[in-house]
């Protein structure tokens, strides 16, 4: 019983991040609006970041800035570095995605996937 409680207490935040990630995935898969899809992708991405950072947390640790005291416990700085890079790359891909959406709006007059698909169907009947 104590093991079970320990396991739940040690894993619940991973579960929460999985649920959060699936919220983002649901938006990406179920919605046809391109801007909304990109926002869903951002939710997905941020949950992965949160997952990584929570892996780096050490109980009783402090932020990884040298305090000069011997025997100080720090949280792991390596996931922080990787996620810093990932955040910046994430904004770059978001920008490209949004630019594509703007371009699609120019060419088709809509950013709704359903509308664009209908257009293709009426233009070229298979």
């Amino acid at each position, binding site marked *: 019983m104590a093991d079970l409680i320990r396991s739940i207490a040690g894993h619940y935040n991973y579960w929460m991040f999985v649920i959060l990630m699936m919220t983002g995935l649901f938006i990406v898969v179920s919605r046809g609006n391109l801007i909304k899809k990109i926002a869903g992708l951002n939710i997905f991405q941020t949950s992965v970041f949160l997952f990584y950072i929570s892996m780096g947390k050490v109980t009783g*640790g402090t932020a990884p800035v040298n305090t000069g005291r011997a025997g100080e416990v720090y949280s792991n700085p390596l996931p922080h570095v990787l996620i810093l890079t990932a955040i910046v790359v994430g904004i770059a891909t978001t920008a490209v995605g949004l630019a594509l959406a703007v371009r699609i709006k*120019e060419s088709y007059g809509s950013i709704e996937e359903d509308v664009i698909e209908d257009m293709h169907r009426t233009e070229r009947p298979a």
Partner: protein
Amino acid sequence: MIMTLIDLALILALLATAVMMIRLRNLFAMVMLAGVFSLLSASLFVALDAVDVAFTEAAVGGGISTVLMLGALALTARHEAPIRRNQLVPLGVTIATGAALLYGTADLPLFGDPAAPVHTHVAPYYLATAPKEIGIDNFVTAILASYRGFDTLGETMVVFTAGVAVLFLLRSARRSRGEVSGPRDDAPDARSGKV
């Protein structure tokens, strides 16, 4: 205990924000909620000791990303069209993926466990030698700029490539609308350097 409660409150707020983002059809409100989502996640990063990541997330995720989204909204649409597609298949896909991931978390080390593999590989070396070798007290900066400097160089390349891609996409959009004024790149005057 108090940290666990703060974590839980922030995570629940994140979940509520994400669910509202699914439901909202007004895209402006959705973008604002996306900004709130970033700010909440930045707070959670602080609670998880990742102060540098929190800075970056608040500035990039909450700031620049919101501005880009608003710019894109101004050029496209403000409202999402009513949903016509079947919602059950996406729901099924999402639940199946989520279940597989939840099953995968069972093997993960416990949250905050100092003996987890992630804490026993190179991180202790960085923590021990960075103040001596690099002379920067912030370990994240020391690793980012020095030990893993090539990663950061690659990141810069990615940002540059994305910038070039955005520039080309938006420029061709304006040209097809006929809004580009002045000499074009292939005009004789521009090539010979005369204005």
